């Protein structure tokens, strides 16, 4: 085997490993939930933010009815808006996923607000989040905790 193909082989292996480490996804009905991540907080923090995306491969729209996680008393959809220079955070209405479309959460937009955290969120920690969809039903997805100021899944 040439030196190049060894390197290529090693690179492919690394890629495969990275892909599997990131392949935290869950499926329920026609929905695919992926890239669920959260930001690390201080140990005494009461609130935290979680982000994920939901793809709808089916012909009908669906929406999130509720969310639950053992790390916090409440998990609810929030929306951050910036109006002029003022940042405002409020409860988001029911989050829906259009047929063939996706629901994407990211910092500064839609997020899942965790309230009354039990003991903060640690970098590297993983916790389960259970989402109940109106049509597809319940699904549990593992959420990975990244850096306190992370802007996406790591």
């Amino acid at each position, binding site marked *: 085997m040439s030196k190049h193909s060894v390197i290529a082989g090693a690179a492919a292996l690394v890629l495969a490993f990275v892909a599997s480490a990131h392949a935290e996804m869950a499926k329920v009905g026609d929905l695919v939930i992926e890239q669920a991540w959260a930001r690390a907080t201080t140990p005494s*923090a009461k609130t935290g933010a979680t982000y994920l995306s939901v793809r709808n491969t089916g012909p009908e729209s669906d929406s999130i009815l509720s969310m639950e996680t053992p790390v916090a008393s409440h998990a609810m959809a929030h929306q951050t808006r910036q109006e002029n220079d003022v940042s405002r955070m409020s*409860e988001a209405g029911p989050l829906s996923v259009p047929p063939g479309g996706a629901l994407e959460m990211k910092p500064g937009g839609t*997020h899942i607000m965790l309230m009354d955290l039990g003991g903060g969120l640690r970098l590297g920690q993983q916790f389960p989040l259970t989402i109940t969809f109106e049509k597809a039903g319940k699904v549990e997805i593992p959420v990975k905790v990244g850096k306190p*100021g992370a*802007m996406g899944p790591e």
Partner: protein
Amino acid sequence: MAEGADWRLLDETGSAFTPDHLRTKPTLVVFGFTHCPDVCPTSLSYVAGTLQALGPQAEAVRPLFVTVDPERDTTDVMAEYTDLFDPRIIGVTGAPDQISAALKSLGAYSRKVPQDDGGYTMDHTATMLLLDDQGRPRSTLDIHEKPEVAAGKIRLLLEKS
């Protein structure tokens, strides 16, 4: 900062922090609160990135995180929270009327918004202010720019002062 500003806050170690402190060196001010998990961590990690981009020059600027939620943000909470991003960032809190006075003199806005669950959140100015060594606003930082751009703005201010 308006002329004649008069307020007395506490830094994260519990020491007094007054308008006089803003007249010693340039200050980078971020307004927010520790129960804000979405916008504030983004701003503070941007400040951390800016300090990193400044290298040794970071010592010439004071990174300040002023809470708009003094009820929940004690000095200890502020210390723990700012250290999560960069230990050089100084958290500042104080009595609610003193915080209001400081926000007003810095041209910042905040409003308490009750939530259905009985808790509350805060609307607040998201702009990051760059003050000169007399506490006068000279420039703002934009989160959408690279931290290197912010570092450039700070260097420009340091050359002038």
